[in-house]
Each structure stands twice: as C-alpha cells, then as structure tokens.
C-alpha cells in the first residue's frame, strides 16, 4: 500500500511542482520585466475568454486525473482481501488493546508476519481514536459503538510506529505503540507462547455460558435463528428489509436485538448491552464467523466495506473488570 500511496504522492509532487514553477516563473519574470519605469505606462488588457477557458480546463483535467488515481488507491485501502487474517482492536483512553483470532492478546503492540494480509476490526470503549501506521500509509478512525476496519500487508520485517491520530484527551500523544513485523517462523514462535486459545473458541464458551445456544440451536427447532452459515449472507428482516450479516450486524443483534429482527422470529431475545464487554462481543463475532466459514472469505463484496458504513449501534457500557487483563502476555517478543 505504501508503494501505491508514494507513487501517487510523487506524481502529485511533480505536477504541483511544475504548476508552482510555472506560476512563480511568470510572477518573477513579469515583476522584473514590467517594473515601473518613468514615462512607460501600463498597457491595459481587458481579459480573454479563450484564455480563461484554457486555464480552467487544463487544471480541471489534471485534477480529474489526480482524483481518479486517488480514488483508486483509496478503494484498495478500504477493501480488505477476503482471506486476510483478522485481528480485533479495542481502543480506550489511552491504550490499544489487540486480540488475534488465535487468542493472543497485546497492549500497544501488534505482531504480524511478513507478507500476510491483516485486517483490523476496531472499536472504541470511549471516545474517537485513530489507528495510524505511517510506514504503511494507513489510518482509520476508531469509533465507539460500531466497528471500522482497515487492512495492510507488511513487506519488510522491523518495528514500525503506531500512533493515535485523532485527538483523544490528556495522554493522546502517549497512545503510541509498535507494529512488530516478523519473519513467519519467528512469528509462529511468538504466537505459540501464552495463548488462551483461538478467539472463536473463547466465543463458543461465552456463547454457551450466556445460554445463547438454548434458542440459537443448530437445527430449525430453535426459538432463535440457526446461526450456522449465516455470516456474510443476506438476512431477511421482519420489516421487509434485507441486510448483510457482517460484523456490525452481528454486533447490533447482540446489543440491540429488537432493531433488526430476522423474519419469522418473535422479539424475545434480551439485550446484552452492559452484560458483555467489547472483548466478549469480539469473541462472539469471531465465533459466529467461524461457524459460517466453511471456506474462508466467501463473504460477498458488500460486507467488507460496510463495516465502515453501517449505522451506529449502542456503545457498550465500559466494564473495566469484565475481561481478563491482557497486560500479562502483551509483549513477549523483544
């Protein structure tokens, strides 16, 4: 991604550099050539419509080229590949809590292997933050009450800056961290140390503990919909709308079940607002994904961008103690 952005940046530098040069050369040349001399009077010129059209049209065409190029790069930045590894990020004042699909947890650090697409599914416990990795040229605001996503593929091992780019209070400038990019072997070794098991397995446990499985059965007899194979598919709602079951939809169903009820089911599910932490919601989402993902990444095109576009949901009450503190295995490497 950095390559694409830099290419466009260099193109822009050249184009705007030439424009600047053109204007400055004209300015300086005219200023010197037509400086006041006694007895020489200015020559009045009314203006010229063809000239005006020319110098409106040529910049406009150049602008459109820049626009199209910029939009193409943006589309790439905003469209995570189907088979990207998923990492959940929860932001709070003033730290980044990261949880890998495999269950590894980190604080203010993110370990990734070289050459793998990584998709971050992010939410905030309090105010708006922004997950910014300058070296990868990516940035995305992290909002309370909904998921936003961004993705990248690291190409060179090393340690890169992670910044919070949206002002978030006193220690905003302390909300920084490291992106640790490792060779796959090193990464495997790191990954095997101290994991609590895959996130989807944690999610399955929570699913059972909260009693979800009594209604959401794996047959058609349940009082709630069967959740197998649901993720990434269109869902018919009671009110006639159809939505795609993406991360934000699953999240909304857990926290506000009445809002988008599936067709043919009674409104009997209680809300879990305030009963589950952001981390637990993430685990549940990961679990529901896992029982749909016979082959990874069959979700259709829509679900990938919609994580950043869907309507907001209710922010979960912050329950600081409801989750195991991830500090203990936050930084095992280096």
């Amino acid at each position: 991604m950095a390559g694409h952005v830099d290419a466009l940046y260099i193109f822009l530098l050249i184009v705007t550099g030439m424009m600047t040069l053109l204007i400055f050369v004209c300015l300086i040349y005219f200023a010197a050539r037509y400086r006041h001399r006694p007895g020489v009077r200015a020559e009045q010129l009314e203006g010229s419509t063809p000239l005006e059209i020319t110098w409106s049209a040529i910049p406009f065409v150049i602008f459109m080229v820049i626009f199209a190029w910029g939009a193409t790069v943006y589309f790439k930045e905003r469209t995570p590949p189907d088979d990207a590894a998923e990492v959940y990020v929860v932001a709070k004042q003033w730290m980044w809590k990261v949880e890998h699909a495999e269950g590894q947890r980190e604080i203010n650090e993110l370990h990734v292997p070289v050459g793998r697409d990584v998709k971050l599914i992010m939410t905030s416990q309090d105010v708006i933050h922004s997950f910014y990795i300058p070296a990868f040229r990516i940035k995305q605001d992290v909002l309370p009450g909904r998921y936003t996503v961004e993705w990248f593929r690291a190409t060179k091992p090393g340690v890169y800056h992670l910044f919070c780019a949206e002002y978030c209070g006193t220690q905003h400038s302390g909300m920084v961290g490291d992106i640790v990019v490792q060779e796959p072997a090193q990464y495997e070794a790191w990954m095997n140390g101290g994991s609590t098991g895959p996130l989807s397995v944690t999610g399955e446990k929570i699913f059972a503990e909260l009693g979800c499985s009594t209604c959401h059965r794996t047959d058609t007899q349940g009082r709630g919909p069967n959740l197998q194979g649901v993720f990434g598919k269109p869902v018919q709602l009671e009110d006639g709308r159809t939505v795609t079951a993406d991360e934000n939809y699953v999240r909304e169903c857990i926290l506000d079940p009445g809002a988008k009820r599936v067709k043919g089911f009674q409104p009997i599910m209680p809300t879990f607002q305030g009963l589950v932490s952001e981390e637990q919601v993430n685990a549940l989402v990961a679990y529901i994904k896992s029982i749909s993902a016979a082959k990874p990444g069959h979700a259709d095109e829509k679900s990938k961008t919609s994580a950043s576009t869907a309507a907001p949901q209710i922010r979960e009450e912050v329950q600081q103690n409801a989750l195991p503190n991830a500090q203990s295995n936050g930084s095992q490497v280096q």
Partner: protein
Amino acid sequence: MADNSAAAVQVNAHGEAHNPALLHHFAEPQQQRDAASLGMWVFLATEVMFFGGLFCAYLVYRRWYFGDFAAASKTINMGYGATNTAVLICSSLTVVLAVWAAQTARRTLLIVSLVITMLLGVTFLGIKGIEYREKFVEHHVPGASFSFDKVPIPGHPGQYANPRHAQLFFSLYFVMTGLHALHMIIGLGIFLWLLTMAWKGRFTPEWHTPVEIGGLYWHFVDIVWIYLFPLLYLIDRHP
C-alpha cells in the same frame, strides 16, 4: 438606483425635511424601506439554516430508529399540538391584519391586532408549558430519571421501543420545541415594542416598516411550527 442621481438629492432634502424617521445615511424613504425588508429576509435565511441543522439531525435519527421514534411520538399529546397549530395560524392572520391596519392608518385596529397576536402567542407558550409538565411527570425528560419501559412500537405487535432511542427522540423534541419557544418569546418582545410604538401613534402609512418586518419574523416562527408539528407529533399516527 443608478439613473436618478439628481432626483435623489432633491428627494433626499425633501425627505429629510418632512420625515423624521428617515435616517441620515439613506437617500430616500423607499431605499430605507427596501433595506429594512431585505435585511429581515436575509436574517430569516440564516434562521432557516439554524433550524435546518436541527431538522437534519432529526431526519437522520428518524430514518435509523423509525419504530422507536414512532412509539415516542405517540406519547406526546396530539391534541395540544393541533390546538397550538390552530392558535399560531390565527395569530398569523392577526399579524396580517396589523400590517394592513398600519398601512391604512387604522390605529385602533392596529393596537387590537397586536394585542390579540400577543395573547395568542402567550396561549401557545402556556399550552407548551402544560405539555412540558406532562412530559416531566411521565419521566420522558432525558437524563437520569428518564424512563420509557415497555412502550409498544406502532404496527409491530409484541415489540417494544428501545428506551435509548426514545431518549434521543425526546432530546430532539425538547431542543427543537424549546428553540422554537425561545423564538416565540423574542417575538413577543418585538411585538411589545411595536405595541408601545403604535400606542404613541408613531406608525403612519408612509412609515410602518417595523410592523412589516416584525410581522415577517412572526410568520417565520409560525412556519417553523408548521413543520415541527407533523415531524414531532404525527410520525406514525393512524385513525
């Protein structure tokens, strides 16, 4: 304006001699009237944008949380709202009467129209106050004591409104009607001033610009209510 320079000077001298209301920097009374009326129209354009921001916020949330908004809307008293709408429409009529009375030098009618307009305005605010009180008693005022349990969503049997979204509705309800009421209070102040001027007999068929632009303001505040009433009270009502 561009072609009557010589005439303008004469009118200027003429006007200043006979019309104490003509301010020094205007050339003629017509220019002064035009300026005042354009000024009020321009001001009303800014008011449209002011309420426009609120309507925009309202429409976004109404689209997202339609059912909850419909349920919350049903708990406010349509009768009060409808009465208030009628009250304001009547007051617009009396404002028109007042302007006509000023134009045709009917001082008594002018004073009576202004007084009735103000009485209607006060009636509106009174009914609004009763409505607010009801909302307060029912714990529908957003904040710690807000409660909106088990209110069914119209047309969706067995489904209840989300109290948080209902609170959003009431936040907007209070801000929108509150700012409208504030405009009514300012309007009453303006009309009180017009009334004292009319009492002293200051308005003439030649000069009654304050009545005209005060009337414009009053009509605008009425029109805002004409939008607020269906948006807040009639979201999903059926006979």
